[in-house]
């Protein structure tokens, strides 16, 4: 790993502030929507927003406190190093692509491609190994879910072509 990989990508302080701020937004949205629905006492009892309104308020108060604490006291040490962030992104991005691909190819084919790519990219395995593992695992999943437990999972053109739908 070269030098630049050990540099911090984000500081803990920045992340603390960002997350507390997001909580503040979240709490405000919850309270605002509950207020819209009615957060008081209706003719027949508490209205729909009665309970969540206060939940939202508590989130707002606590996030303000945490925000204050983060500004004053949070350490400036790294939240994540560049190299680490790169690794996490390298895993998370393909995973998001994988989930998107399930829509078109079905879960089995998408999973096989995902496992194979992962092994090839991060594990540097030979193609015999990644093909056998990825296909084997997914055939096992297919047998387990579709046949043994009879839980249908999303299927795509390959399963249609093989008449397995």
């Amino acid at each position, binding site marked *: 790993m070269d030098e630049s990989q050990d540099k911090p990508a984000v500081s*803990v302080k920045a*992340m*603390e502030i960002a*997350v507390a701020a997001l*909580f503040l937004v*979240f*709490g405000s*949205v*919850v309270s605002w*929507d*509950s207020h819209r*629905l009615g957060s008081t*006492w209706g003719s027949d*009892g*508490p*209205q*729909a*927003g*009665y*309970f*969540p309104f206060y*939940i*939202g308020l*508590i*989130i707002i108060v*606590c*996030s303000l*406190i*945490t925000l204050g*604490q983060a500004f004053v006291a949070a350490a400036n040490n790294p*939240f*994540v190093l560049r190299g*680490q962030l790169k*690794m*996490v992104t390298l*895993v*998370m991005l393909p*995973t*998001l692509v994988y*989930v998107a691909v*399930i*829509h078109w190819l079905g*879960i089995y084919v998408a*999973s096989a491609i*995902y*496992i194979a790519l*992962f*092994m090839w990219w*991060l*594990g540097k*395995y030979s193609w015999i190994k990644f093909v056998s*593992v990825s296909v084997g*695992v997914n055939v096992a*999943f297919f047998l387990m879910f579709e046949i043994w*437990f*009879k*839980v*249908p*999972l*999303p299927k795509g053109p390959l399963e249609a072509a093989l008449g397995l739908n």
Partner: protein
Amino acid sequence: MAEIHSLMQGFSVALTPFNLGLMMVGIILGVIIGVLPGLGGANGVAILLPLTFSMNPTSAIIMLSCIYWGALFGGAITSILFNIPGEPWSVATTFDGYPLGQKGRAGTALTAAFTSSFVGALVGVLLITFLSPVIARFALRFGPPEYFSVYLLTFCAFVGMSKGSPFKTIMSMMMGFALAAVGLDTVTGQLRMTFGFTELLKGFDFLIAVIGLFGIGEILLTIEEGLEFKGANAKLDMRVVIDTWKELPKYWKTSIRSAAVGCFMGIVPGGATPASFMSYGIAKKMSRDGDKFGTGMVEGVVAPETAAHAAGTSALLPMLTLGVPGSPTAAVLLGGLLIWGLQPGPMLFAEKPDFVWGLIASMYLGNIAGLIVVLTCVPLFAAILRIPFSIIAPVIMVICAIGAYTVHSSMFDVWLMCVFGIMGYVFKKLDYPLAPLVLALVLGDRAEDAFRQSMLASQGDMRILFSNSLVGSITSLAFLLLFWPLISKALELLRGRRGLPSG
């Protein structure tokens, strides 16, 4: 001795070949789940839950609870051999377990860990057997205000017992409540916080949250650390086992103390993790060799393991009797009960005795089976850990995705799982606790219903939470626990000395 009679009936339910088979499957799956990074008791059970929808509930819960026991056992293997706590409650086991392994006494450490786990669980199950019918009978008198105060107690305990910032605990918990409120409000029929998205109509399912937060989040954390497994050799021959068993009775005091701490912490929702730390701390303070703790003392393995397993087991007591789970895994099991159409709580004991006592009997059998399985199969499980991470990680991701999909057969849930995964990663790194979020998500609707009904009964007067001695004392206890950090600090100042060092 009505309990003994009921228990015998329970054994007759649990002791069918089919259920015994499921028990073994559950234990083995559980240990594997406990050993693998990214899969733990909570999300392991969450992923497998949809597969059991078609089974009969008794068999299903037997299998799922055995996964839980297996995961409890499995955590110790990784702690001792690899210094990687597979589960949060086995962190304290690494303190003395790993040094023991390094000294070439891994077998001793493993035997001690498994045996004490078993002892802890046994004490927990005994407690459940004899205490739960009593509590269930008592809880029959509970009305909405009492239930709300019990929920309050649960959540206040989390805040009071948390090690980090109490505000972060509250934020994470309230987020759970807010997410639980999303969707169709069953009382008024109004849509809450859906903002026009039809996918949000049915709200957020806690199973998706559990799979994302604990599964994907954990994988991301592991990847970041760039895992390399450097483990001690795992061999367990019978001679080591028997030698260790001869040594263990020496620590009976530690065992009893740890089991008591564990049971208490399991019932008061704090869970297995603080119980294991607390018990380790106490053992260190009380032991004659206290200063040698951390260098590889068998006693230092016995204490946290007994407590963790006792807590993990007794966490099911409030889940069964009151419908209030003491740990995330218990929360997932509770979710399972609801899906199978069983209402956890005092009526369960009256209406479904077969189910309840079958489950309790299976706890005895499951832990015996678990002990045998782990003692005989350690090398196998250690071998799983040697499978390179670049194979394990994508397979676990795929399992999580399939698990999330099967809950409602919805792709939207798989996307949600990814969001929860990133959230889990960030929360973990910033010390936002995840367990309160999950528990609030599970209990949100029930807590809100109890609150609304109480408010209806009192026409909006909060004093209903102190309206009689029962509800009043539960509510007071809740506030006591909520402000416990402040109270204990005040007591320390008054006495002018410091409290127990933790860990």
